């Protein structure tokens, strides 16, 4: 029996964290309630005292807490990010997930004992880039950007001696993470700086002519006919026109579901699988995590188990194995 993949589960609130742990997650990743993390959504995330409590709860059950401090620190106001690093260390978390070189450097200097994971937001897509972060900032794990196929991940793992973590389920960025200014182009709020993509404050839904219209920052993003499954009002999953034809130019409203690739990813040398969705909540986790738990355990024993019944929680009620399969590109 191989050692099972580590299931890294999102939590936007303490209640979601408990659901994730009870449902069988190995690690929980979460963020502080501010712009230091890439899911800086209103009403979401953890206060310092909630984090302390979360660490106690999680460690009592032998699991881990990973804190995402994965936005790019603002010039002249780096203190918010530095404090996040220090507070995460003080709360006794198991690792921080960082993208910004300035923040990484601070963590190395001031909290050297604290494990550092390289965030997907750093978009380290080659062995060369990953080795660079390893040598310069002593990262222990890299969250691979969603630009690599399973074949490419296999090759990559042969060249590096560091843990790799990949996204397995949830929202799918068709763009290279941490390198996208589409949302800030029309809302002025940046995923990299403020930690929000397609901020709810700039989203408007309306019913017009029997269609559900979604707008972001005043621009129409999509129009759904009655009965048509809807998606998030994220720009990259909108319907746009070029050459007189409307289409999902960048990506369909769809979720990543690569659960069937769990055995292949194990084979590829991946050590942890991550679920996107800190903004999703308890119901999502209680459906998803037990399913993934049993698939991971089956794969560790060499059994194959098909995933099922997750279409309803998927965006647009559609799913894709995304870039892990080459045909996506």
């Amino acid at each position: 029996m191989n050692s099972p993949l580590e299931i890294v589960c999102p939590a936007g609130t303490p209640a979601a964290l408990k659901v994730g742990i009870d449902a069988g997650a190995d690690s929980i990743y979460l963020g502080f309630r501010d712009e230091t993390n890439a899911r800086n959504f209103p009403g979401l995330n953890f206060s310092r005292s909630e984090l302390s409590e979360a660490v106690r709860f999680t460690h009592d059950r032998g699991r881990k807490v990973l804190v995402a401090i994965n936005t790019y620190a603002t010039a002249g106001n780096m203190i918010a990010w530095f404090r996040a690093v220090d507070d995460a260390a003080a709360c006794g978390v198991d690792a921080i997930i960082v993208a910004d070189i300035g923040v990484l450097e601070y963590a190395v200097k001031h909290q050297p004992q604290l494990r550092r994971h390289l965030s997907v937001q750093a978009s380290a897509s080659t062995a060369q880039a990953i080795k660079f972060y390893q040598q310069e900032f002593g990262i222990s794990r890299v969250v691979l950007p969603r630009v690599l196929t399973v074949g490419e991940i296999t090759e990559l793992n042969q060249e590096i001696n560091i843990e790799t973590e990949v996204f397995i389920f949830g929202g799918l960025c068709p763009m290279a993470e941490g390198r996208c200014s589409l949302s800030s182009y029309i809302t002025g709020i940046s995923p990299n700086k403020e930690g929000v993509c397609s901020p709810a404050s700039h989203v408007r839904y309306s019913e017009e002519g029997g269609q559900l219209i979604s707008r972001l920052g005043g621009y129409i993003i999509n129009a759904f006919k009655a009965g048509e499954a809807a998606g998030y009002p994220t720009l990259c999953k909108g319907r746009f026109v070029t050459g007189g034809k409307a289409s999902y130019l960048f990506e369909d409203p769809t979720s990543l579901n690569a659960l069937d690739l769990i055995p292949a990813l194990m084979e590829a040398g991946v050590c942890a699988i991550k679920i996107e969705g800190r903004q999703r909540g308890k119901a999502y986790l209680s459906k998803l995590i037990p399913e993934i738990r049993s698939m991971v355990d089956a794969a560790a024993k060499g059994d194959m188990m098909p995933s099922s019944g997750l279409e309803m929680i998927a965006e647009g009620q559609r799913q894709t194995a995304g870039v892990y399969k080459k045909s996506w590109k």
Partner: protein
Amino acid sequence: METTSKLTLGPVFFNWAPEKLRDFYFRIADQAPVDTVCLGEVICSKRLPFYEGLIPDIAERLEASGKEVIFSTLALVMNEREVSAIYALSQKPEFYIEANDTSAISCLKGRRFAVGPFINVYNEATMDYLIGCGADRICLTCELPSRSIRILAEHSTVPLELQVFGRMPLALSARCYHARLHSLHKDGCQFVCDQDPDGRSVETLEGDGFLTINGIQTMSHSYVSLLAELRELQDIGVYRFRLSPQDVDMVGVAQIFRQVLDHRLDPGEGQNQLETLSGNVAFSNGFYHGGEGCHYINP
């Protein structure tokens, strides 16, 4: 540090035919009042073989006319072949190279290099680190507001650069949108991106000009213009200004910027000329002013 204003012609992001590219650079060499020119393929490594052979001639012509040449590397490096190409380039000390991806920084660390706009430099700590690695010029990312630029400029020991003209590079993807649009796979793309020398225009369902696709890259629909902000940028301490090539009279664009920098042309009049020259395209400067990148704030 330098306090004379300089113009840089950024790399051509589009898939232009080799002859068009050569003629373009020869004309730039002979006529454009720019100080620095970036060469190299930044968007898609598959395009490079078509014009690679021309680069030495182009570089020579540019240098002969007194222009500094920078070799810009790929923005999204995704395989070993691409890394090897960057590594090979990095082993030639006579070349001045602009890194656009961490893989390139890794190759260039310890020697002199430039940091391109695809590297995330949002704060002084990151800037200091890169300078420590050997970076001696940094072109900032287009979404930085003036307040961040000011802090970085106050802090920096190397010249900073900012894009002041052209469509803004907003996103990169493993997926090729030109191929997807033509129902082709990336590996068999037939180089359809060459049909759109100024990028493929993308509109909203309501017909608003919105974005531009260029292979794996997504750009703004609007051209950024910081003509009216040049003086303020100089006050802040930024003296290098990047013009990103569009399929318009780039010599004319460079002349307008040069004249405004030299106080020979009023920025407002310069903007009028820029609009005439660029045809029916919207302009924007919202990122600089701390808001939506697509907006144009009147000076």
